[in-house]
């Protein structure tokens, strides 16, 4: 039997399994969507007045401008937040007996991981739709054209694909689900130390240097330019570049870990 020909079928089977898990255990998904929503509400309503006024620009800015400013950062944070559950479910699979069962079956080996990746993509899409919905309810205004929306959705999909492969690797590298839930935590914080909530120009030199060069900043800037209806080509290209790098590292690292953990 050629297992490669079953790659798609087995990945679809594993995707169904992971979607069922999400449906059976919705509290985790809800919590991970709730976290960025909480930040969105907190920053818009508690800090928004002051922060909005502090934004650079000729006419005085306000709370609604701040909502527009932080939405890209919150979207990025949402992708990062959902990836925690990916790491946890991968680690749960790897530490349970079921992974040995999968390994002794004549299935496409990669399907165990692709099932998680595809499931996480679905979960991320739901989370992003929710965050967008709430942002629009709060009064988010965009100047994005249809083509630009396609570009934005494509870039969000690319980011979540890349982040998911990376967190699959983190899940594989974790000795247990608890450790797996802690490790991706840093990605939720990264938008803060970037262009997510304040302009990087306002930061002290050392921090500013980090903020300018960390991967989430071009990603957030690209989202921001797309939402403003004036895509910045260099930000978009840098964002795509970072996503490809993160995704590739995640994929290769996952593949290696999945193989070596077999030899335990």
């Amino acid at each position, binding site marked *: *039997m050629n297992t490669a020909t079953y790659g798609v079928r087995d990945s679809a089977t594993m995707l169904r399994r992971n979607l069922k898990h999400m449906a059976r255990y919705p509290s985790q998904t809800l919590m991970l969507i709730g976290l960025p929503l909480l930040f969105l509400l907190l920053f818009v309503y508690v800090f928004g007045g002051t922060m909005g006024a502090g934004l650079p620009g000729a006419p005085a800015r306000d709370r609604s401008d701040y909502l527009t400013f932080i939405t890209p950062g919150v979207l990025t944070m949402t992708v990062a937040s959902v990836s925690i559950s990916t790491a946890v479910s991968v680690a749960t699979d790897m530490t349970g*007996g079921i992974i*040995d069962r999968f390994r002794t079956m*004549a299935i496409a080996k990669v399907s165990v991981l692709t099932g998680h990746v595809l499931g996480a993509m679905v979960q991320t899409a739901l989370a992003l739709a929710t965050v967008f919905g709430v942002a629009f309810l709060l009064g988010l205004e965009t100047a994005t054209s249809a083509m630009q929306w396609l570009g934005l959705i494509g870039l969000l999909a690319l980011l979540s694909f890349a982040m998911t492969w990376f967190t699959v690797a983190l899940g594989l590298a974790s000795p247990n689900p608890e450790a797996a839930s802690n490790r991706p935590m840093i990605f939720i914080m990264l938008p803060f130390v970037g262009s997510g909530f304040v302009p990087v120009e306002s930061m002290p030199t050392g921090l500013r240097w980090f903020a300018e060069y960390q991967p989430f900043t071009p990603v957030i800037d690209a989202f921001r330019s797309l939402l403003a209806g004036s895509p910045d080509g260099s930000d978009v290209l840098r964002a795509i570049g970072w996503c490809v790098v993160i995704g590739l590292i995640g994929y290769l690292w996952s593949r290696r870990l999945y193989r070596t953990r077999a030899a335990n």
Partner: protein
Amino acid sequence: MVGMTTRINAIEVAGLRKSYGDHEVVAGVDLAVPAGTVYALLGPNGAGKTTTVRILSTLLPADAGEARVAGYDIQREADQVRASIGVTGQFSAVDQLLTGRENLRLMADLGHLDRSHAESVVAQLLERFHLAEVADRRAGTYSGGMKRRLDLAMTLVAGPRLIFLDEPTTGLDPRSRRDLWGIVRELVADGVTVFLTTQYLEEADQLADRIGVLDKGRLVAEGTAAELKRLVSGGHVELQAADGERLAELARQFPEANPNAAALTLTLPHDGSLTTLRRLLAGIGDDAVTGLAVHTPGLDDVFLALTDHSTAGDSPEEVPA
């Protein structure tokens, strides 16, 4: 050894070795399991049973040696091996968040069964493993015995002709254990080959055609349960004397016996045959003895004698022949 035999063997292993650092877990194992039979690998914890199963089921690469499983080389033809076997590991391999039916269905999908066939196989297995009533409950809510049955049912979905069971009844209550033995016997009746590991002598005795005793990574004995029992002495007859005077009398009559004045018992070596037992009884007066017990060497004696040399000699039941 591999290839020398003319019988059809489901498993053939020669010179299998596996080490972790300096610790040799499997230290040169040779064995052959004819198709349609049950082979039990018996040994204490840490003897290398699980490692052997993990190597034969393609989960672990061996350091040295050769093995053919279902006719395929475990290293070069791992995919064909996987397509031919079913494995129930030591730890529960059911998906706790899925129902029993969904777990079986998952196995059917991964086994690439077509839809209608999958449905009938799943329904049959639920029925056969007494899981039909709980089929739509999450596996996480099942009892230990139910989980174990589901685990085994999942192993059988794709209809493997060779199954590995790693300590299938560890942690089960006696009733669940007997249920599982019944299932294994049914499988064997259908012609399935079973390779199981166990630390329970009774289990090996009950189920296996051949038993391999594994100790520190080596097969220290192999044979049928009866053959293994013959390897150790220790069969004896215990006579309960009516009083001390009678005991002394019996002791004089049987100088090779071992009297115990406090318990008023006399222990005589015995080979298990009816003839010698009859001869023995013929020489004893009716009122001299109030009770009699015949002890044949069990697998326990074999196990202790072969795998734990420090305590075998201390056994109070051990009678010097």
